Structures are given as structure tokens and as C-alpha cells.
């Protein structure tokens, strides 16, 4: 799976947890998860669980709050899938 495909799937995950129809459009590599997308700690947990289900990967025991931007998450998934 290439970076563009991962990006689209991650946008889909974040959109599914949001009532804001424009969430997916706002997701750029540099978009900040907490301050720009407004993700709470529970939203971050949702994201991690949904990513694990979707991509069939396991997150390491890092705290979910260690991701700052949307691009950080895409890169993490990309490395996990290698």
C-alpha cells in the first residue's frame, strides 16, 4: 500500500468519527491533530483502534498522544506496513 492509499484510508477513519463534513478535506500532512482537527484523547484512541482494524497492524506501546500531525500518523502506518 502506498502513501497516497494510506492517506485516503486514514482520512476515511477520521471522517467516520466526525460530524464535520469537511474533516477529510482538512487533513494535510502538516495538519495538527489536536489543535487543528480538534481531536480529543478519546478521538485519538478511536483513531488508533480503527487503524489497527483497517490495516491489520499493532501499535507499539507508545501513548496515542505522541502523534502531532496527520502526516506523523501516515508515516507511522507506512513504516509498520513495510
Amino acid at each position, binding site marked *: 500500500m502506498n502513501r497516497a492509499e494510506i492517506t485516503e484510508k486514514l482520512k476515511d477513519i477520521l471522517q*467516520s468519527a466526525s460530524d*464535520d463534513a469537511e474533516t477529510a478535506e482538512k487533513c494535510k500532512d502538516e495538519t495538527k491533530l489536536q489543535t487543528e482537527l*480538534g481531536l480529543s484523547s478519546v478521538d485519538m484512541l478511536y483513531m488508533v483502534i480503527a487503524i489497527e482494524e483497517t490495516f491489520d497492524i499493532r501499535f507499539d506501546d507508545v501513548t496515542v498522544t505522541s502523534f502531532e500531525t496527520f502526516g506523523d500518523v501516515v508515516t507511522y502506518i507506512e513504516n509498520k506496513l513495510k
Partner: protein
Amino acid sequence: MENVFTTDREKFRPYNSPEEFDRIVYYNSVGEMWENCVKEYAQRTAIEDDGKKYTYEQLEEQASFLRPRFGEGKRVALLCPNSYDFVKAYLAIVTSGSTAVILPPQLPPEAVFGCCMKLGANMLAYHPALSEKLATVKAAAPQFPLVDITEAAAKKKDTVLSKPTDPCVVMFTGGTTGRSKGALLNHRAVIEGTVNGCYGVGHVFGQRYMLILPLSHVFGLIRNLMTCLYTGSAMFICRSNKDMFRDIATFRPTIMVMVPALAEMALTLSRKFGRNMLGDDLKYIICGAAAVSPYLIEEYPKMGISLLAGYGLTESANLVSGNPNSVGKPESVGIPYPNQQLRIVNGELWLKGDNMMDGYVGDEAENAAAYEDGWFKTGDLVKIDGDGYLYITGRSKEIIVLANGENVSPAEVEARFNTPAFIADTQVFEDVLPNGTHILALEAVPRATELKGIEGDVKEYITKELEKINATLPPYQRVSRIEIRDTDFERTPSMKIVRYHKCK
């Protein structure tokens, strides 16, 4: 007295299975309750954690070898993450005639000793996983007794049967004013809270619980752990919330105690992946610690799960009311539990009862503010309907209760953002986005004189600096939006900020 409400426990009878209702009895102390549990459920699994199962008998055997380490009549601070070891140590302390002061495991190391002193602890019982947090204790008081809870004594000691009025636990709370303090609950209060957890739940004995809440919170300690043990149920300890759904698939819980934000997340995930992520065995979600949306109460029964909402406080040993008829009255937090008196004064709920705390430990000013004529003033605005169902209509004062149940005191967070010299003042508040999402937001007023010489976009510079501070806060206190104002806040005659109330 006018306007005093009480509830007879018979009001809950129609909602419990007939054979179970009469098994709901009261004990004089946690020790007496625990002795009975061990006798009645000896060979049943009590706790499942980290790949191991412990029966009631095994848990008692191991707790009995810890009891001598705590003595009697002591106040023992317990610093331990959610684990079997926590359960064992907590039980050993409160059934040895001592009092457990439950410290949140995420407490910053520099705060551990201060909390022990403020809450009058004589010793600190700790799990080795958190031993790096003991440095300040060792430096400040080298003689202060430290007990590693994984090291048993040479001899065992039997349960001590405390009196109902003897102190049992001290729990951390932001309370109605937001300043951290310790609520002292006696044995009667803890037993009341434990028993209250049984009312209105059709089948509550011999269940399978999964623990995802912190045991340092009353909802986790009393409604989840204590009611689980009282009913001879088994509790699986989920070590990491991100593994929750994998753990559910293995353990197959029948009851889960959770905050609304997590219940909502589980619903969204179930929809996204087209299957019930909570497992087909789950029958009840006990939901509280924050406002429960009627939407959740209506949606969960479609998956065969009853979502039962309730209302409680740390000061009331968690449970004040529970809703056995959530679907019929989805806006209500339920019927007040028995052995309490409720009074509504100018809309605010005042409480007396067997479940109420004995007061905040060593905090006369807070106690003076919290009580009036012996009534505890909750700070919550309520109404009661003709059927005796309670409704929360608002939260008085400034506390922000987030969807995940965390209480945020704006003043506490603002103090952190106010530290740079170039910040004149800040306001932290709850806002609601056009899509309905509730967030914690920050507005800051810069101090222009301190910003001379900053090159480039000043607002961008300030935002970046505030983001750095934001990153150092505990996750639940972090703000999701930062705005830099061009003007000061609106102020009261005494120059206090006129607070936003965007979500009331």
C-alpha cells in the same frame, strides 16, 4: 422539612431479578463483606489480569500476607497502576483496620510527597513499576515508611472487622470547586456505594466485568471493582484501552462500566466495522461520570445492550442515583438510591446519607464551603419529576465536565498558560463546534510590552509558545483550540474575567 426526598429500596425491586433482589444485603464494613465473599465464592475467579486468573480464595490468601505490612489504624497512601496488585493491596489495607489513600498513578513525581502529607498518610505503599516516582519522598523524608506491595510479610493476618463509622478510603477529587482534595469515605459509605451498584440491574450477581476505568476514581473503585466482588463476579483488567476490543473478544464481558465518550466511541466503531465490537455477551453498560446523551440510551438496545445511566460524586461514594428505566426516561439520571436524603435548595442538590463522605481531609476551608446545616452542597442543579426521577439541569460554578468524565478546573489550566511574561491573561472554556463536538478552548490576551523585538508574525509566535505549554499538560487538560485576542476580556467590577458559558 420541606422538599426532602428519600427513596425506598423497594422502588428498584421490579427492575432486579426476583431471586437476586433479596440477596442484596448490607454489611458493617468492607472486611465483613469480603469475608462473606471469600466464603461464598471461594473457587470462583475474582480477577483476571496479565494472563493470570485469581480466585476469591487466592486473592484472600495473598492479601492476608500483605496485611501485616500495613498495621492497624494507619493511613496508607497507595500508588499503583490498575492491576491485580492494586486490588490485592487495596483489599489488604482496608481489611486490616487501616485506611487507603488512593493516589492517582499519573500523579507527577514532585506531587507524591505533598499529597501524602496533605492527606495525612503515615506510609506509602507503592508498586515497583512506579518506584521512580518516590525520589521526592526519599529526599524530603528519608524515614517515611515505604512499602513495596509485591513483597509479602512472613506471616499472614486475618481480616479486621472495622466499625461502619471507621475510615475506609480517601479518594482524590476536584469536588465542586476544582481544587484537588481528598474525600474521606467510611466503611458504611463504601458499602452503600457498593450495594447501590446492584439496584436496578436485572442480573447483577455472577457477572463478568471488564475494567477500563482507573481504580483511583470512585466509578472504577466502587461501581466497578467493589460491586464486582460483592456480587461474586469476575473482573478482567484491561491494561491498555487501545487493546480493549481485543480483550473483549477473549474475555467476553457481560457488564462494562464506562464513561459516555467511550460508549460513543464503541458505537461508532461498531458501525464502521459492521459488527458489535463490544461482543455478543455484553448485556449492560453502566454509564456515568459525565452527562449521558439520550442518543446512546436509545441506540444501544438495538445491539441488545441496556445502557443504564447514573449520577454520582466522589463525595457520595460514587452513586447518588441510577436509572433502571433508561429507555423510558432517557433524559433522567434515575432514581436516588436508598438511605439518602435529598433536598433541592434554589435548584441546587443538597445531600445527606449513609453513602456520604465524612469530609475533605485536612481542609477546613473546603469543608466549611461544602456544607450547610450538615447538608453537602453538590453544586449541581437538578429537578425531580412526579415519579421520583432525578434530572441534572446544570453545573453550578466553573467546573467543566468533559465528555470523557474528566473534571477540568479552568483556573488550574489557565495558571499554566499564564506563566510566560508576554501573556496578560487567559481563559479556558468549553466550546461547541458547529458540528456539535464539545472541545476545550483557550483564548489569550498578550502583554504587548513583553513582545517587543519579536520578529515575524507575533500571534504565530505566541500560539507556538502556548502549544508548547499545552503539550506539557495532562491529556485531559489540553486545549484543542488556541486563539490570541486583540482586546482584553470583558471584566466584572472587581476585574474578574466574565466567563464564557457557551455550553450551558
